[in-house]
């Protein structure tokens, strides 16, 4: 006699059902076919920012990557985890080689932005960014962390399947193979990674008294080394400083939880744009701010991009109806 699910002990059925629910949810989260349009938008933004960053590396290439630069090759281990943090600049013994590798980085980033030979461009761009950041750890900051995170998603997914020269030349499959679940995996990786970034950044701030006191934003505004826009008039408005500080702290700590529900997502994305544009305009880190905004675009549904690209207005229902085909 064959046992049926009804014959099993009742205590085992809930566990099986629970595990089955987990497997179903996991599959739906990661392995669903989606429109790669958001990934293409992210590719364009990342490519432009990376091309600019690569050009700026080249402006002082000997100082960043040369044997007598800010950090001698033999001292790099003092600042990062050797031998794992490899770099192709370790093999560049003369200024010409440094510039050739730097030029290769610029070319790859430009190709990525326009979507030509996209899979190869994305891979070379990632290798170039890793090489630059691992060779010059004295000169890196959040911009490099963010671009690296985005490039991994662009390597994984078919980022050239839309809005690219590849797509025009070879059709939707030309920019990274057949469109399948890879776009979803790539977008999910960026989304989850972004939540990890905000979670740890927010938790780190919870150690600081100035964030609890609501004065941390003043510390950023009064720092002359960062300042590109004078916000010292905030000194006369301490409650406004408190409000901005506490809103920033709440947004960052809660982001990983509240960016997912459709009801709160637009609010958290709008706050992300405000915070990162604010950092870019007032603290002179526009590239970092824009890179974080590009990363947040992973949460903007394809329907919104389709409407924007066809010059149709984006309504609230369009933005909120993110789980529909």
């Amino acid at each position, binding site marked *: 006699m064959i046992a049926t699910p009804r014959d099993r002990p009742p205590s085992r059925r809930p566990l099986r059902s629970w595990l089955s629910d987990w497997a179903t949810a*996991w*599959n*739906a989260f*990661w*392995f669903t*076919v*989606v*429109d790669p349009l*958001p990934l293409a938008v992210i590719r364009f933004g990342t490519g432009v920012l990376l091309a600019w*960053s690569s050009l*700026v*590396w080249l*402006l002082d290439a000997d100082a960043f990557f040369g044997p*007598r*630069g800010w950090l001698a090759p033999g*001292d790099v281990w003092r600042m990062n985890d050797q031998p*794992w*943090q*490899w770099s192709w600049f370790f093999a560049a013994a003369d200024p010409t080689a440094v510039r050739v590798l730097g030029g290769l980085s610029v070319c790859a980033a430009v190709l990525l932005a326009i979507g030509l030979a996209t899979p190869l461009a994305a891979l070379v761009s*990632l290798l170039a960014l*890793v090489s630059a950041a*691992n060779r*010059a*750890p*004295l*000169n890196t*900051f959040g911009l490099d962390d963010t671009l*690296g995170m985005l490039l991994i998603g662009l390597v994984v997914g078919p980022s050239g399947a839309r809005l690219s020269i590849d797509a025009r030349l070879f059709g939707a499959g030309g920019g990274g193979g057949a469109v*399948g679940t890879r776009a979803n*995996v790539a*977008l999910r*990786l960026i989304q989850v990674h972004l939540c*990890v970034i905000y979670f*740890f950044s927010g938790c*780190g701030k*919870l*150690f*600081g*008294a100035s*964030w609890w006191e609501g004065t*941390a934003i003043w510390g950023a505004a*009064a*720092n*002359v*080394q960062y300042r590109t826009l004078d916000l*010292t008039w905030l*000194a*006369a408005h301490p409650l406004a400083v408190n409000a901005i500080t506490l809103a920033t702290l709440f947004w960052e700590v809660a982001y990983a939880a509240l*960016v*997912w*529900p459709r009801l709160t*997502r637009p609010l958290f994305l709008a706050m992300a744009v405000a915070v990162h544009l604010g950092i870019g305009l007032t603290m002179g880190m526009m*590239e970092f701010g824009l890179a974080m905004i590009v990363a947040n675009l*992973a*949460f903007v*549904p*394809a329907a919104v991009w389709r409407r924007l690209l066809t010059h149709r207005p984006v309504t609230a229902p369009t933005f909120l109806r993110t*789980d*529909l*085909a």
Partner: protein
Amino acid sequence: MIHGVEHAPRPLRPGLARVLLSIVIIGYLAGVIVAPLSGPPPASDLSRVLLQPFRPLLGGLYLSHGYRFFAPNPGPGHSIRWTITLPDGSSRSGAIPDARVDRPRLLYHRRFMVAEKIAGLVPPPDAPSEVRASARAEWLPLVKGVADNLLRAHGGERVTLEMVEHYLPGPDEVVEGRGGPDLVTPLGTFARRGRLP
């Protein structure tokens, strides 16, 4: 439903590839989470143990980040003041970074990071002598690199470096038009090859 992307109702069929891919995804995300969990300090011994198998992944893909932006508190800014003696005996001075010459702004910021990262290793001048001696072993090789780069770029014979911590005024001080002195820590004088005695 709380998913963040627009779905077509066509999930993949179950298969070995999906199981393997799930394992890769879980491994990757575990590394992404373990990195900020294990540093910067404070961090648990457990997180440092967990970090070990992920070091090749995190180092190889440049993922070893703490993500503590402006945490725990936004502090004062730093710059490195330099004075170079040229072969003809004349001198030239400047600062790292220097907003007047470091353009575009991204170049300024990349140079600013030199001062900020080294400042994190240099204790204030009034710190206990044993603390300063211990820290010096860490920051001196980096400062020598900075000196060597300046000497190369300007064709100088020797360079004197100082770390400047710029005074961060409180709101009351700004309203009253007051300020405070910057904190200056000498880093040393360096010749073309190594530090002068």
